[in-house]
């Protein structure tokens, strides 16, 4: 049973460019959340997708956008990259459809984004 998978593992982009990160949730999970983890800090919630809609959003600008596909996989897009966007981007999945049975969020290994 594959866990949460993210691609790519590492990425280097130039300031002002756009980037797309991808996430496949754990088998049986239908909800995907994205987090940004700056070096030496805890993850910060960006947004969450369920039923192909953005359900919750953290304190991130509109440059950060996402999408969820019918197979529950998800993309995170960041436009007009800034140096401060350099971080580990984490995807977490959980099963919202059976919330009372499985509440744990499982994280992928993340995508290390470096903006130069």
């Amino acid at each position, binding site marked *: 049973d594959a866990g949460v998978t993210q691609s790519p593992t590492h990425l280097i982009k130039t300031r002002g460019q756009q980037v797309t990160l991808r996430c496949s949730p754990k088998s049986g999970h239908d909800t995907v959340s994205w987090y940004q983890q700056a070096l030496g800090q805890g*993850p910060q*919630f960006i947004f969450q997708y369920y039923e192909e809609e953005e359900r919750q959003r953290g304190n991130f600008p509109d440059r950060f956008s996402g999408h969820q596909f019918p197979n529950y996989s998800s993309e995170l897009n960041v436009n007009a990259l800034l140096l401060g966007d350099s971080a580990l981007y984490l995807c977490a999945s959980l099963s919202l459809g059976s919330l009372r049975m499985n509440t744990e969020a499982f994280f992928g290994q993340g995508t290390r984004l470096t903006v130069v």
Partner: protein
Amino acid sequence: QQQVKQSPQSLIVQKGGIPIINCAYENTAFDYFPWYQQFPGKGPALLIAIRPDVSEKKEGRFTISFNKSAKQFSLHIMDSQPGDSATYFCAAGRFNNAGNMLTFGGGTRLMVKP
């Protein structure tokens, strides 16, 4: 209201010692409190989680103590081993129709010396 404060930032113990990591939250609407372990270059892995209707939960060598009135919770690692050296994060979540958004503490870097 959404902040989770974690202490200490770093901790060094000898093998067999019992490191204790503390967290405090402000938002009384939080009803799910997980702890995650993260190794360098890896994503956070769930260790143990607790709901506010219990004061303590134990899984293997890991124990969460929860004090609802003080809005505090802590992680104890019994018989710590060098392999436990990692960064530990507490988190707090709130379940609603939109699911689980986690607010994380700043992390504690634990080193267990042989």
